């Protein structure tokens, strides 16, 4: 009872599955991308399979994972655990690499679909990838230009590298998921999908020993039943300040022009992420005044509320990939 779109899976693991893992940020649509791929595989192409996401109480802007498993139609799906050694790994955001060990379990037979403006060579060094194929596609740029989300562009890239997922079936599922309610989004999304399908660049890297293989690991927790505080108490006040939230941005950043800033303090009131760094500076009369020194982009999620509230036009919204990296970097201080 094979569907007309059915093809033998090009490769499967020991358990008989072709597996995809997506490393993403809440709000980028990995969950939906997984659902669309699962539906395309199971309902559109006749495989058996499953799809799920890593759930916590993740909000928009926090790291999440989505998983897709496909197998032969007569095989029962009995695995509920996350994908550890993916055939395709998808990385939704460059900055994630800083906070999440995304390349675990990626070997030379894996394809890494990476949302980046970097070349495959640069990407390999950036990811410190042991080996395997890197497929770079600037999904963020496509999404910003088409006013869509990165997930659709990445779906295009996934289809391309998979060698068996039918792009037309996936496009049908995109249409079905947007439905009548969001029919106005269908056209830009299909265009985003096609651009994602066509605009990527692939390169295979032999495991040449430049970087070690990073196996999947469930270890690495520093606290456990031996040294966790009794009752789960945290005795390191404010330690979330050590986190890097850069990956929460979806393409836009506020840029501060100090020459017109009056340090009125309204941005500081309105910022949900407490990004502004203040100090004392002498005004023209020689009096010490509270002064806005800079933005700490480590915490900025790019909501742009500050740009909206600034009466003095000291803040402007800029596309992050067009902003001088130094501006973002110089903002990096950890306020103690």
């Amino acid at each position, binding site marked *: 009872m094979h569907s007309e779109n059915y093809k033998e899976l090009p490769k499967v693991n020991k358990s008989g599955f072709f597996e995809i893992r997506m490393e993403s940020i809440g709000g980028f649509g990995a969950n939906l991308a997984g659902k669309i791929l699962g539906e395309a595989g199971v309902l559109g192409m006749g495989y058996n399979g499953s799809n799920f996401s890593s759930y916590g109480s993740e909000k*928009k802007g926090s790291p999440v994972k989505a998983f897709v498993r496909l197998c032969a139609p007569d095989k029962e799906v009995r695995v509920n655990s996350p994908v550890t050694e993916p055939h395709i790994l998808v990385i939704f955001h460059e900055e994630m690499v800083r906070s999440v060990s995304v390349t675990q379990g990626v070997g030379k037979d894996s394809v890494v679909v990476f949302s980046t403006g970097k070349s495959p060579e640069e990407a390999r060094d950036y990811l410190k990838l042991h080996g395997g194929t890197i497929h770079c596609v600037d999904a963020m740029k496509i999404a910003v230009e088409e006013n869509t989300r990165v997930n659709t562009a990445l779906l295009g890239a996934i289809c391309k590298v998979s060698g068996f997922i039918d792009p037309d079936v996936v496009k049908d599922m995109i249409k079905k998921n947007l439905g009548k309610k969001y029919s106005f989004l269908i056209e830009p999304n299909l265009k985003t999908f096609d651009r994602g399908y066509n605009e990527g660049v692939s390169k295979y890297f032999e495991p040449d020993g430049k970087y070690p293989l990073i196996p999947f690991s*469930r270890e690495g927790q520093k*606290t456990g039943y031996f040294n966790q505080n009794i009752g789960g108490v945290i005795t390191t006040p404010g*330690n979330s300040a050590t986190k890097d939230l850069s990956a929460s941005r979806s393409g836009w950043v506020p840029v501060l022009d100090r020459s017109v800033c009056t340090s009125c303090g309204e941005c500081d009131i309105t910022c949900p992420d407490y990004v502004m760094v203040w100090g004392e500076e002498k005004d023209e009369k020689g009096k010490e005044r509270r002064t806005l020194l800079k933005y700490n982009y480590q915490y900025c999620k790019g909501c742009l*509320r500050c740009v909206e509230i600034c009466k003095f036009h000291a803040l402007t919204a800029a596309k992050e990939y067009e902003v001088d990296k130094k501006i973002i970097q110089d903002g990096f201080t950890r306020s103690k």
Partner: protein
Amino acid sequence: MATATQEIEKKKETESDQTVDFMSGNEAAALAANQINYHVMGYYPITPSTEIAEYLDEMGANGEHNVNMVPADGEHGAAGICYGATTAGGRVFNATSANGLLFAIEQLPVQSGTRFPMVLNVVCRSVSGPLDIRGDHSDVMSVLNMGWIILMAKDPQAVYDMNIMAVKIGELQDVRLPVIVASDGFFTSHQKRKIQHFTEKKTISDFVGEFQATVTSVDPANPVTIGPYMNDPDQINNKKQLSLAMDAAYAAIPKVFKEYEKISGRRYNVVETYRMEDAEAAMFILNSAADTAMEAVDALRESGKKVGVVYATVIRPFPSREIAAALGKAKVVLVADRADSYGANGGSMTHEVKAALKDEPDNRTLVMSRIYGLGGKDFFREDGITMLELALEAARKGKVDVPYDYIGITPGDPAYKPEQVFKPITKEEATPNIISVAKDEKTGKLTVKGVRQRDLTAMPRRIVQGHGACPGCGIFPNIGTFLKGISGHVVMLWHTGCGMVVTTGYPFTSFRITYIHNLFQNGAATLSGVVEMYKERQRRGEIPKDQDITFVMVTGDGGLDIGLGPALGTAFRNHNLIIIEYDNEGYMNTGNQLSFTTPLGHATSTSNVGSVGKGKKFHHKDSAQLFAAAHIPYVFTATDVHYKDLITKAAKAQYYAKHEGMAFGKLLSVCPLNWRYNDKDGQAVAGAAVDTCFFPLYEVERGITTLNYNPEEKGKKLPVEEWLKMMAKTKHILKPDNKHILQEFQREVDRRWNRIKALSEHPLL
């Protein structure tokens, strides 16, 4: 009336039409409820079961069913709604998880003891605390003794099938018991699998039949007393009847399973076995992990190891005979429990399996217990292999060395010293003396001076950077700005909600000051206890009398639905503390379900818009007026857009909390994700809510109301559509078809506004 057997005799000859789909467990449960077309669902959202109500509401909004969905004030209330509805003679449905189930727990024996059947989906999740939203069985294992039938659904297909069979089983005339369908939170509830469901609703209605009430509370021709006062010698007989009903269910369930097989082609047994024919070592394990365990068995069988798996699809009534038969030949069985029964040296299933084997006089099977997967820790095939190898080793030795242990725990690195990022904030640092509060002895009112936001950037942040809120979240501008008006030491208690979850994900905290979480039924009571202990210890000289702490509780509007009782109790006792409600008009932490503060017509995931659904059906709760009616010294409303007003009110609240008693503040807090507007536009959206007079800025100081900002006087008053058009959640209200909703909303906004204005104008009010 037909007997159970006669009912089951009505057999279908052929399988019915089915549709192949790709669905999660929650979708499958909702679809089954849709197709059963329950009369009433009483519900309260809790992760991971919430989606069931969401999907069902969405289907209802599109006219797919007639289930009357009643949003409760909490799970206890939801259970009450369900109980009442079952007495009134129809089919009733509910879904919950974890602490929701425990909050409802006292209602469970009421439902079973008075013998009103209904179906409750327990989407299993770890019970707090510390709070954990992921899947284990600590909730369902807490309700083994409530008199409910408990079916276990290991995958989305089973969730669908069990939901249909549950109706039939519970309603059998010699059973008449409520039924739980338990599936694994996230592993099953949120995992999409290929499933089949009946194409026609009629297939299901034919299978379950018409609902037949034994008694109803709404039949004046047949008055009945439901739930009398029943002590000894009578109650023991009521319980014997319940026990007999469980016996009847035990006899009937296999028959219902067979009958269902005829229409579905899917076979269920109360106890299922996998490769047990010659197994020397076996595992007993429930639900989704049983699937994974089968993969482990296959892996070990490849190397010739004689292992197998046994699981149950029904645990109440407990199928002891079938379990003993399935496991009796194995030398060793390892019972894997996803919930501990602390101090009992094994989880509940361990002891029940042991008891089942003990009942077979010749049985020699050794039993060992392993606790696994608590708090949602993933169960990999390798974990199954580890457990089976432990059982094999015991089989070889003929004895169990370690009868009870945990699997999957981490000792931690003894050399690890967590980094201290901040020093505690000193009283001096937190008292920059920018703001001053003085009391006018004549009017009794407070005057606040020095609210200068530029200077106030010197106030150290009690909540620091690095929290995981969504971009553009309104909670942190509101609470951050409020705290700028509070001098000195602060201790905070936060209710469960977005603000709490994004600030304290272990091992991180965004709080630089002391912080407590308690579940949102009970935060106000908890902080009352903190304050009273603090004062008592000061009285006893255990804490310096001149040490000054301001105690602040923060709740969402959701926490003031489920936790309203204890919050009002705290107000009635007038403790020295401040309660702040960030009102984002919905249960945003669990995914945008309606709260009682969601305004009329607004779309949420449980007030969907469709061909029939037009958003929320009733008006928003006015919590500020509720607390004003409690006659506490200070009540206010504010929002960060009017930040000077907010800081001023914070300073007043601190004064009142220190000198006179409780202060309550309601802060309008935008939510770009669920109100559906562009992240950057939060200030404009909140500003419009104020300028339409939907959210008037006022205070009630020792009973006297003052309007702090009057858009009418400033010529800024806007019609409500100017606010509604800014958000995608309300755009449908502006369509010509929904004009009546818009008019009704405007009328209510005006009525409440005029009332506040009148209060403000009257010298005594």
